């Protein structure tokens, strides 16, 4: 049927660990995103309040974008370490 990767992949014993870690981090980020959407939907005036010299909405926006990158780097760190440990 012509499926399977276009290049030959080695065995990855860290796959299960990475999946579990990914699910946990996904849930954590999703919760933050849900809170953000919920505040905007139910109490938008809260987003007009001033935090650190900016509107709360701007701080939330920068925070969500920054958090995504920080969590991505942490995820990669643990995945790379697991691959080195389990696939060696």
């Amino acid at each position, binding site marked *: 049927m012509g499926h399977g990767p276009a290049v030959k992949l080695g065995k990855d014993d860290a796959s299960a660990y990475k999946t579990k870690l990914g699910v946990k*981090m*996904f849930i954590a980020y999703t919760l933050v995103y849900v809170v953000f959407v919920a505040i905007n939907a139910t109490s938008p005036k809260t987003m007009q309040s001033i935090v650190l010299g900016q509107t709360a909405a701007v701080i939330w926006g920068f925070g969500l*974008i920054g958090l995504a*990158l920080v969590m991505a780097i942490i995820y990669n760190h643990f*995945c790379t370490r697991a691959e080195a440990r389990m696939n060696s």
Partner: protein
Amino acid sequence: MVYTQSPLAIGLFIFFVSFVLGLSFYLARRTSSADSYYAAGGNIHWFTNGVAFAGDYLSAASFLGICGMIATAGYDGWMYSIGYLAGWIVALFLVAEPMKRLGKYTFTDALDSKFNSKAIQLTAAISTLLVSVFYLIPQMVGAGVLVQPLLGLPHWVGVCIVGVVVTIIVATAGMASTTYVQFFKGALLLIMSTVVVIYVLTQGLSTSPVNNGQAYHDFKTLQADAALNVNEAGYNVVAGLDSEFGKAGFVKLVKDGVESIWHLNQNDQGFRLEETLFMTKLPDGTKTFNGAAKEEGKFFPVGHIKELRVNGQEVATTGAVGPLAYLSALKDSTIVLWGKKYIHDGANTVTVYYQKPTPGDRVLRPGLKFKVDNATGTQTFNFVSLMLALFCGTAALPHILIRYYTVPSQAAARKSTIVAIAAIGFFYILTLFLGMGAMTNGVINLTDNNMSAPLLALSFGVVLFSIISSLAFATVLGTVSGLIVAASGAVAHDLMDNFLGMRMTDAGKVRAGKISAVVVGCIAIYLGIIFEGMNVSFLVGWAFAVAASANLPAILMLLFWKRTTAKGIAASITVGLISSLGRILISPDMWVRYGYLPTEAPISFNSPALISIPLSFLALVMVSMMTQKDLIINDATETAGA
């Protein structure tokens, strides 16, 4: 607005197009196998792929649409940026590595990896085609928008140029040329957007913006008594308080034979009249702008600050400021936004744009576009549904997912996603400054806010405008080429090769992909022409809703629920497609496209994701539960064959 073409802009445009075409023809000599055509041989470095992800993803919707929406609706436009970026978390944590492990050339390959099911091959291919086409429309519209100021050509010519160039890119070297076009475009977009933001911050804020050496139009204010006697000589009332204009809060005056429309604001002495901009659509379809032909340039660019405050003091200008000080000054100031009303004036339809001074802290929080303040249940539903679609859509876009097949390993897939998050996140932070810069620098074309970012660049000089416009055109090229690779893969690999079982040699598969690319390119051109005038980011929101509904439930359940069956996946895709597309087609926004009033639409919301995604999950679970015996047979066959 009237644009003047610059030879530099035309030269840069020709250079960009020549460069990508030359690159494509060069790479074509190395693209003879199906692996190299559909997956660039699977040997792209993770960093290159990460930047190419950004080049693929940061489409006309991001660069033109989001900046335009921020310029006219403030923070609500930036909500798109936040939602799009959050979607990459789904891609990284749940989808990236499994997609690399399971798939070969297309999104369908991954879904079908366990089953070899004709139903999956057909439904997933149709889904890929529909999502790609939905995504293609705003890109092509964006191309048409750009070509007018850049080359002085009409909308349809821009659409045709992009269609032809992209079809050549894809038909020559497939994913290989597409990858490098996207890499260069992604890198240049980040660099040049940063340059424009530096210009914005260096110039700072002012109550009298200067647009490329031209002073901002001085919008007049008149005073009239309660009987509408204007205190300035020469003005006579044409349509007063009892007219359709008066009922809508406006008055039409004439002076020296020139008609003008004024916004009524009641005060102690009667009325304060504020000058408006207006577009009149005549019964024969022709349009006038402030009562004159477009070429006369009487429809002025807008966007200014009414009261600029820094540290509690009212000032005329801030001078150069840092990014946080820039946002802080905007938050404390009063910004003039523009409202819009439609008025029937006999057989003519008049669109009146009027000033709406708005506190900066109100602009920098949600609620100007999305109805979230004192919202009805339907309005809240619409908002949450859109945010859900943006969050779930990224990891379900076929043209994004197939980039995972171009890298050599799962670790490379993961790392390239992180590079993409860094690049795209940085760009989306820039969009806030680009949009707010356009909002306050007198560059917004109220009849088409998609041009706000390039026109912001124009306010700093023709050289920057030329570079940004050419780059915006390259932006469209990069994204459209990725979409056409995905769509042609769905036709040639999923439908012809797998579903129909047409026996093809390796060279035959490549030929089928190239012919499919040409056909998809022609369809994209046609759609780009008929959808002229719609906000491109808004259209992409629909593509995300369809992708999130049809594809994401199937991907996630395949990865995380062992009882998922082939029929369950096919049912999920079908239900997701029908429920999302069906709701979009009867939505208020589409009703306007059909020529009816939005209030006459059968449903009152535009974003279907909050209904269609759960329906898609439900269909998968129910059908899988009913077809568990297929799973047992499949397992037994695999065991026997082992």
